[in-house]
């Protein structure tokens, strides 16, 4: 099938440079000031009036929490009384402290903004296009997909994100599950229910390290408990029968220790070399590609400095400003486009697309194009007025999209490397083995946006679903 790859040019005249009359009319439609999280274009969910941010699917976060709480609950209820009596009172104290630390780190990882980059404003996007499109040709060409820059004497390619309409900063990646560009993107962790990026990587690392300690601690204590019981003149089977909960804990801890310790070791290696999971998997700086020993331009070439920089570095604030109020000009819907005569090669800009519901946009679009008759008479190669709102329709265009438009970079590894108490995990032989369970997530274009394609499609155009 023909690829629906047509980039929609931003029409700068539909942007902030508006005739005054249009502005005055639309100001009346804004009735109450809304917070920015209510119009956030990504797929995140917000709670407590924007204070808490979560990914769209919480994944198996409830399972993770449940397993941790159940195991610790059993430990405190069944093993601790015996151990306190026979050993020391510090056992539940240490266990309790570890448990609190694990839960706090987990919740902090899940509920923190991982470093989401807000999408480019229409003005910015138009400016980028203007800077690139200097050839002066009559047909419109979309911005090129990559831009090369020098970082510490090394060439790095910056990729253009069609969803967020900007060149991604280095080490930034677009998570298709959350539909956001995330800075220093590591991976999307379903167990934590959030992306792991610049702002929550240290919480994630604390979580897995403390969980390793907790699991090992509980494992050791349970072994000690059963051993002590069986030394009191009873057989092993009898001891187990007296404390069946210990067996449950033993099984859970035994199967999860391997994966958690492996994961902790892997991430310790990543931190020491200042890499992200994303870069390691793609082999961006592997020695096969680069002539030098360390091709990583971000590394400080010292393990201690790398560790300190990643874990104890400054904590940047959230850039998406969830609880800020929308200013008046952001809240004004883009009805002005219908008043502007659009040349055949351009389409209605998605100037304020992200501030409206999809349905409103559809209604407005259909109305404005009915009025102005801008539907092209002949069907171009791509579908005109192709309104792709639902998931399946967009999904069908995605394989062709990914095949043609974004062949290299659109594959985001969705790594499930942190299964705390899963029984089905295999033992990891190497710290960074390729887990066959990695899911390659879909490329950048969002599934929940409308698509309007008018006019003749340029041959090499790409479609972003705005």
């Amino acid at each position, binding site marked *: 099938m023909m690829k629906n790859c047509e980039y929609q*040019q*931003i*029409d*700068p*005249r539909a942007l*902030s*440079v508006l005739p005054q009359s249009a502005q005055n009319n639309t100001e009346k439609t804004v009735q109450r000031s809304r917070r920015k999280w209510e119009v956030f274009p990504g797929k995140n969910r917000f709670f407590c009036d924007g204070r808490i941010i979560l990914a769209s699917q919480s994944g198996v976060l409830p399972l993770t929490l449940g397993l941790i709480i159940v195991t610790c609950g059993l430990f405190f209820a069944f093993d601790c009384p015996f151990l306190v009596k026979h050993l020391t009172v510090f056992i539940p104290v240490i266990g309790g402290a570890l448990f*609190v*630390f694990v839960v*706090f*780190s987990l919740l*902090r990882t899940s509920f923190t903004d991982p470093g989401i*980059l*807000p999408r480019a*404003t229409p*003005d*910015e996007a*138009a*400016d980028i*296009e*203007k800077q690139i*499109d*200097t050839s002066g*040709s*009559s*047909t*419109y060409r979309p911005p090129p997909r990559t831009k090369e*820059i*020098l*970082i*510490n004497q090394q060439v*790095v390619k*910056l990729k253009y994100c069609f969803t967020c309409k*900007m060149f991604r*900063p*280095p*080490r930034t990646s677009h998570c298709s599950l959350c539909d956001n560009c995330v*800075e*220093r993107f590591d991976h999307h962790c379903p167990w934590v229910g959030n992306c792991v990026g610049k702002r929550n990587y*240290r*919480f994630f690392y*604390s979580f897995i390290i403390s969980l390793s300690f907790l699991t090992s601690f509980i494992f050791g204590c349970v072994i000690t408990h059963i051993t002590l019981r069986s030394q009191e003149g009873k057989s092993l089977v009898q001891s187990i029968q007296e404390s069946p909960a210990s067996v449950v804990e033993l099984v859970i801890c035994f199967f999860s220790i391997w994966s958690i310790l492996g994961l902790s070791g892997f991430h310790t290696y990543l931190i020491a070399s200042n890499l992200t999971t994303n870069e390691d998997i793609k082999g961006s700086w592997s020695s096969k590609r680069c002539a030098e020993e360390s091709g990583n*331009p*971000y590394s400080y070439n010292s393990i201690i*400095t790398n560790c*300190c*920089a990643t*874990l*104890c*570095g*400054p*904590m*940047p*604030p959230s*850039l*998406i*400003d969830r609880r800020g109020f929308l200013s008046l000009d952001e809240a004004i819907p883009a009805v002005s486009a219908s008043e502007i005569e659009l*040349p055949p*090669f*351009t389409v209605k800009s998605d100037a304020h697309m992200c501030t409206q519901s999809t349905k409103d946009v559809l209604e407005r679009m259909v109305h404005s194009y009915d009025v102005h008759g801008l539907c092209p008479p002949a069907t171009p190669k791509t579908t005109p007025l192709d309104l792709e709102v639902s998931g399946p329709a967009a999904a069908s265009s995605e394989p062709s999209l990914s095949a043609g438009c974004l062949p290299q970079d659109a594959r985001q590894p969705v790594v499930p490397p942190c299964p705390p108490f899963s029984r089905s995990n295999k033992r990891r032989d190497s710290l960074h083995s390729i887990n066959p369970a990695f899911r390659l997530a879909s490329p950048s274009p969002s599934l929940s946006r409308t698509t309007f394609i008018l006019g003749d499609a340029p041959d090499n155009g790409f479609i972003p679903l705005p």
Partner: protein
Amino acid sequence: MAKEFHNLQELRHNASLVTKVFVQRDYTEGTVCRFQAKFPSELDNRIERTLLEETVKTLNSYYVEAEKIGGQSYLEGCLACATAYIVFLCMETRYEKVLKKISGYIHEQNEKIYAPRGLLLTDPVERGMRVLEISVFEDRGSGSSSPSSSMSSAGSSAR
């Protein structure tokens, strides 16, 4: 401070927005926040080069200070880790303190240097630290002295 800025904004309603100029990020030193010192050509007849370059240089130095990895940031990191990151709920991080300083600096620059020339700087934090946005205004009262910039931007995009 927010109130004063709002008045400055209201002042801007008397002038009409002509175009916006963007100063992009400079990634030659890695992922640290730094803006390009290249002078945008659209502002040639609006402001002296040295003034804008000075502003950008000062902003860059503020960002370097915010992202500096040294004794204070280590202390902050270790303290946060030891308290299971609860301390971040009560305490303002050094980065946030520097961002407040930056916001004050930008406001001051706007008042003293840019507003009299019909320009307005937008704090990069409001644009996700991607760009330094400079809005170019034109007084409605006086005739448009630089129609070329707006026309060229519209013309080049509308193909």
